[in-house]
C-alpha cells in the first residue's frame, strides 16, 4: 500500500507538472524563421563542428522514383537495390543519432551554466530529445521491416523535430554572456 501510494503520488504530481510547465511551451514552440536562423548562428558560434545530417541525402535515399526506375528497367536488381538503400538509410539514421547525442551534450553544457534557464524549457528539451530518440529507433525498425522507401515520411518528421530542438538550444545559448560562451567553447573543445 505504501509503495502504491508513493507511485500514485508521483504520477499525479508528474502529470500536473508536465501539464503545467512543459505542455504550454510545446504548444507555443513555433519560432519565426528569423529567430530560428539567429538561434542556429548562436549554436554554430559555440560548436562550429556540429553539423545536422543532410535532409536532401535522406530524400535521395528514399526517393520512390529511383525504385520505379529500377523496377521498370532491370527488375532483377530490385532486391539488391532495396538492400543497398536500406543500408544507406540505416547509416543516415545512425549519423542522426550521433548528432542528437552531441546536440544534447551541448545543450547540457549550455543549460548548466545558464541562470535564465526555465524548468519548462528544460523539460521541453528533455521531452523533445526523448521523442526524437524514439522516432529514430522507430525509423530504423521501419527500414528493417518495411524497407527504406516506406520510411521516407519519418525522415521529414525527424528533421522537423531536429529543427525545433536546435532552435530551442540555440535560443538558450543566445541568453549567455561572452564569458559563459567562452567557457562552453573550451568545454566543448575539451570533450571533442
Amino acid at each position, binding site marked *: 500500500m*505504501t509503495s502504491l501510494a508513493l507511485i500514485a*503520488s508521483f504520477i499525479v504530481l508528474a502529470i500536473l507538472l508536465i501539464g503545467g510547465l512543459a505542455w504550454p511551451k510545446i504548444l507555443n514552440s513555433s519560432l519565426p524563421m528569423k529567430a530560428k536562423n539567429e538561434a542556429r548562428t548562436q549554436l554554430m558560434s559555440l560548436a562550429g*563542428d556540429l553539423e545536422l545530417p543532410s535532409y536532401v541525402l535522406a530524400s535521395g535515399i528514399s526517393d520512390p522514383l529511383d525504385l520505379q526506375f529500377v523496377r521498370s528497367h532491370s527488375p532483377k536488381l530490385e532486391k539488391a537495390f532495396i538492400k543497398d538503400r536500406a543500408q544507406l538509410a540505416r547509416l543516415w539514421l545512425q549519423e542522426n543519432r550521433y548528432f542528437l547525442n552531441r546536440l544534447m551534450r551541448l545543450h547540457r553544457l549550455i543549460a*548548466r551554466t545558464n541562470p535564465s534557464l526555465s524548468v519548462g524549457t528544460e523539460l521541453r528539451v528533455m521531452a523533445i530529445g526523448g521523442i526524437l530518440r524514439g522516432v529514430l529507433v522507430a525509423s530504423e525498425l521501419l527500414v528493417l521491416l518495411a524497407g527504406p522507401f516506406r520510411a521516407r515520411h519519418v525522415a521529414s518528421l525527424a528533421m522537423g523535430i531536429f529543427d525545433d530542438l536546435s532552435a530551442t538550444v540555440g535560443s538558450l545559448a543566445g541568453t549567455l554572456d561572452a564569458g559563459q560562451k*567562452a567557457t562552453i567553447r*573550451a568545454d566543448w573543445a575539451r570533450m571533442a
Partner: protein
Amino acid sequence: MAAYFTPFLSTILLLGLLILGLRSRLLALYPMFYFYLATVALCQLIRIAIINYYKSYYLPVYWYTQFVCVALGFGILWEIYGAVFRHFPGTARMARFLVSFALATVLLNTLIQIATAQSAGLSSVISLEKNMRLVQAGLLALGIALVIHYEIPIGKNAGGILYGYGAFVITSVLLLSLREHFGPSFYTWWDAGQVLSYRTILAVWLYTLHSYCPAPKVVASPAMAEDYYWLGKTTQTSLAKLKRSLGKALQP
C-alpha cells in the same frame, strides 16, 4: 587494551576528521558537515557515559540522539547541493525544482497514508528512521543523477562527502529494513553492520577530506582568440563541404 579502545575508535576517527577540517580550512567551506560530525561525536560520548553509569536510560537516549543525527543529515544534503551546484545556476534551478517535486511526492504520500489510516510508517522508531533515511537516499540519488547528467565536475572533498554520505545512508536503509524483517534475531548483525559501515565511511572521509581539493575548473582562453579559432574551424568545415560537393559534381 584493544577491547578498551574499540568503543572509542569511531570517536577518535571523528575527532581526527574535525582536527583535519580545522587544519585544512575545510571547516569554513562545509560548516554544516563539520557541525554534523561534532554532534555525532558528542552523541557518542553521551551514549558511552550513559551505558556506563545510567544503563536503564540507554535506549531512549540512543533513539533521541539518533534522531538528532538523522535530522542533521538533511543539513549535509542542503550544504552539498549548494557546494556542488554553486557555479552552475541552471543545474541549481533544476535541482531546486526536482527536490521540491520529491518532497511534495513524500508529503502527498504521507497524506494518502493518513487518509487511509496506513500509519505503519509512524508506528515505530525504526520505521521512522528508515523513512527519513529513505528520503535522504532519494535526495542523494537525485543529486548524483544531476551531477552525472550535467557532467558537473566535483572535487575530491565534495565528492567524498556526497558519495560517502550516500553509501552510509544506503547501508543504513538496508540494515534497518533487514532488522525490521528479521526481528530480534538480527540485532547482533545489525549492530556489527552499523559499526563496520560507519567506520568504513569515516575512513573514506579521512582520506578524501585530509586536505583542500577544489573542483577542477575549465579555463576559458580569451574570447577574442576563441572567436578566431572557431571562425577558422567553421571556415575549414565549410571548405571541406564545398570540396566534397565539387567532387560529386565533377564525377561523370
